[in-house]
């Protein structure tokens, strides 16, 4: 058998995922989410969550500081725009490299511990990065306002080549609107493919084995530190890639994206969708971004229109109750959903789907044994 061959199931999954991502402008229409900026975010945070899952989902190491790599990726990309060129490729390469290096450094230290101590170490590093980025490192990060492009930026490479683009571009094609979305979507698919390969590779199996029983790994002759470190760096690079893409679609890098709340967000995404699965984290990312952008904009006016069909008194009551959960109350809904998921569906939405499929199949195929659940895709 050839080593680059993909199994049929993997190929089908990849195909399905590709179609779902590329067709976003169509199927998101009824949800009111089919506009480029939000779809770009869907793709970007999808990448972030996929990368986070490579660490958390496979090795079980819960990092509370991944936002730091996301932020570093953004800063690196914007600096590439400022100093070199408005082209996206150098920005991406630069961002992935820098965030990878940063992850190597932090991972090397943090992975000396495991469990909650590892979480606290990553949290501490991320908070230090955020605090410094906001204040002392302002010459590099432009602090509170965030790093932005200015007319005075040197852009040495562009100048040498005589290009005078004002917005991020890919080989001369400006990455705005749908072009930007398809660029991000393409990278999401590539990121998904790589994650799929990693998960299905011997390396991926080692990571899962580390999560399952680290002691046995040691007595089986494996040095687990390089494995976990590799996973940490890869997922840091994913975060950097996502951060860079956010800077490409919108050339600004702010310190807030490094705050621990932002790290918590990617944890929520992964858990919500289904930790350890390939598709789950992406779905989680989409749901949270949908909440943040669409759900949060529901105001009472919209609710009144939605419940217009109800009799007046009832309408007001329904609107009063629902308004606590939508609009500015979206955090409450998110928190509740999250608690319910962790309590009842620790495997996230993917587990819910699996249970549903299982439940739906059983009466249809009474004689056959149900398919054995696979550990991770």
């Amino acid at each position, binding site marked *: 058998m050839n080593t680059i061959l993909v199994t049929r199931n993997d190929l089908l999954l990849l195909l399905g995922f590709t179609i779902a991502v590329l067709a976003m402008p169509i199927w998101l229409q009824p949800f009111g989410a089919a506009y480029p900026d939000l779809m770009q975010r869907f793709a970007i945070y999808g990448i972030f969550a996929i990368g986070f899952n490579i660490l958390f989902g496979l090795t079980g190491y819960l990092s509370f500081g991944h936002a730091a790599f996301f932020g570093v990726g953004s800063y690196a990309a914007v600096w590439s725009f400022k100093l070199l060129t408005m082209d996206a490729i150098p920005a991406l390469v630069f961002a992935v490299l820098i965030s990878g290096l940063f992850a190597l450094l932090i991972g090397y230290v943090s992975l000396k511990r495991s469990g909650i101590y590892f979480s606290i170490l990553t949290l501490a590093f991320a908070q230090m990065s955020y605090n410094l980025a906001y*204040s002392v490192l302002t010459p590099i990060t432009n602090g509170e306002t965030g790093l932005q492009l200015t007319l005075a930026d040197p852009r040495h490479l562009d100048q040498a080549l005589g290009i005078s683009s004002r917005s991020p571009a890919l080989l001369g094609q400006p990455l705005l*609107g749908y072009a930007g979305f398809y660029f991000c979507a393409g990278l999401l698919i590539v990121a998904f493919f790589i994650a799929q390969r990693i998960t299905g590779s011997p390396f991926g199996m080692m990571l899962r084995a580390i999560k399952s029983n680290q002691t046995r790994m040691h007595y089986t002759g494996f040095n687990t530190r390089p494995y976990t470190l590799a996973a940490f760096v890869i997922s840091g690079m994913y975060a950097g890639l996502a951060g860079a893409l956010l800077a490409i679609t919108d050339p600004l890098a702010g310190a807030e994206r490094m705050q621990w709340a932002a790290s918590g967000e990617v944890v929520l995404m992964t858990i919500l969708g289904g930790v350890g699965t390939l598709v789950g984290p992406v779905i989680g990312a989409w749901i949270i971004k949908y909440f943040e952008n669409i759900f949060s904009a529901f105001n009472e006016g919209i609710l009144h229109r939605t419940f217009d069909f109800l009799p007046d008194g009832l309408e007001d009551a329904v609107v009063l109750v629902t308004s606590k959960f939508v609009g500015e109350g979206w955090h409450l809904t998110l928190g509740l959903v999250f608690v319910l998921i962790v309590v009842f569906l620790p495997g996230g939405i993917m587990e819910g789907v699996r249970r549903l499929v299982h439940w739906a199949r059983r009466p249809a195929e009474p004689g056959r044994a149900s398919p054995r659940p696979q550990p991770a895709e």
Partner: protein
Amino acid sequence: MNHSKKGMSRRTLIKTGLAGILATGVSPLILTRGAWAQEFCNNPTGDTVTIGLNLPLSGAYAEEGADEQKAYELAVQHLNGEGDGGLLNVFAPSALKGNGVLGKKMAFVTSDSQTKADVARAGATRMIERDGAIMITGGSSSAEAVAVQGLCQEMGVIFMAGLTHSNDTTGKDKKRYGFRHFFNAYQSGISLGPVLGDEYGADRRAYHLTADYTWGWTQEESIKNATEALGWETVQAVRTPLGAADFSQYLTPVLNSGADVLILNHYGNDMVNSLTQAVQFGMRDRQVNGKQFEIVVPLFSELMAKGAGENIKGIFGTSNWHWNLQDPGTIAFTKSFGAAYGSPPSQAAHTAYVQTLLYADAVERAGTFYPPEVIKALEGFEFDGMGNGRTLYRADDHQCIKSVLVVRGNENPTSQYDVLEVVREVPREEVAYDPTIFGGELGPAEPAPMC
């Protein structure tokens, strides 16, 4: 809340039809004024025009955001000819007719900015791309304002800033598409300086605690310059982390520093906490260098003053506007806002309301929504009746030049809203400054080919 009416009456149908015919008849006229008629971002084609409100609806500034939203809703009502008309009746010169903007009803969409520059930009992008917002407005921090105005410049959409006080918004980071009605740190310095000189004398030693980010630094610098010009000495300027919660470790060194004035360059919760704690340290009961120790908070907001409770009493600061002023504009706005919501408006609400009216008026005067024309109409526009006296939208940096209030925490409030008293209305001439001192470039007015 408005309930949208289902269906459309025959009469309105006929009217709309007529308007359509009229529009076709008139269109060649518009074309002669420029070939750009349809070629700009979100040119409203229907009978409504949508503006995007970028407000902190969650997070620490949620109340400020809620107050701004009330003001925007009120402004939109007034522009569309509903309610009591508010400032439309006193604002002069005004091209507003109370029938919407250029005959189109004004509508709005909102986005929760969470007081984060990133999120604010994402929200603005959404409102421009998806909801077709012709103009973006709102915000409660300078970081948001600078970030969103940069975006709006790229997209070719006008941004009418809400609450932003940093010098950078109309200084280093000014943009052709960004406009600020609110005052800035530099103006706080020049207006506060003389009052401090009168009250506390020329021989003072000041100690600054400054929020460690861009706004804090610009304010510290502005106040330092203003007080040093009075002859004050700056003993020390210490940077404090954002959101430090407990400031005691920064307050203890003040006690034996020989300083007799403490200047808190904090805003929001930082200001509430640092002021509360400073007062608890007994600073206001101290005698240093034979003088009464004083605390100054250069930028005030009513909501934060409420948060600081009793501790705000007698503290000097500056404000963009206050509902207690006695000019016709303020009286009209306070009445109108109070009637709608049962409480007086905050300065954030005021600036939000005024910005909406100013934009609508500029569109009316320009006769088009085409941004470069609207920008031209706003640049150098001089008006009165909005509560700040005669005001100029300066063309060089898009900063409104108008009077600034020096305020003090009210010693004897008559109600829970009566937390501040106006000490001095510093006239416009005194707070005008040379726009070139902060550098920056406005950039081009031609909209980007994108969007």
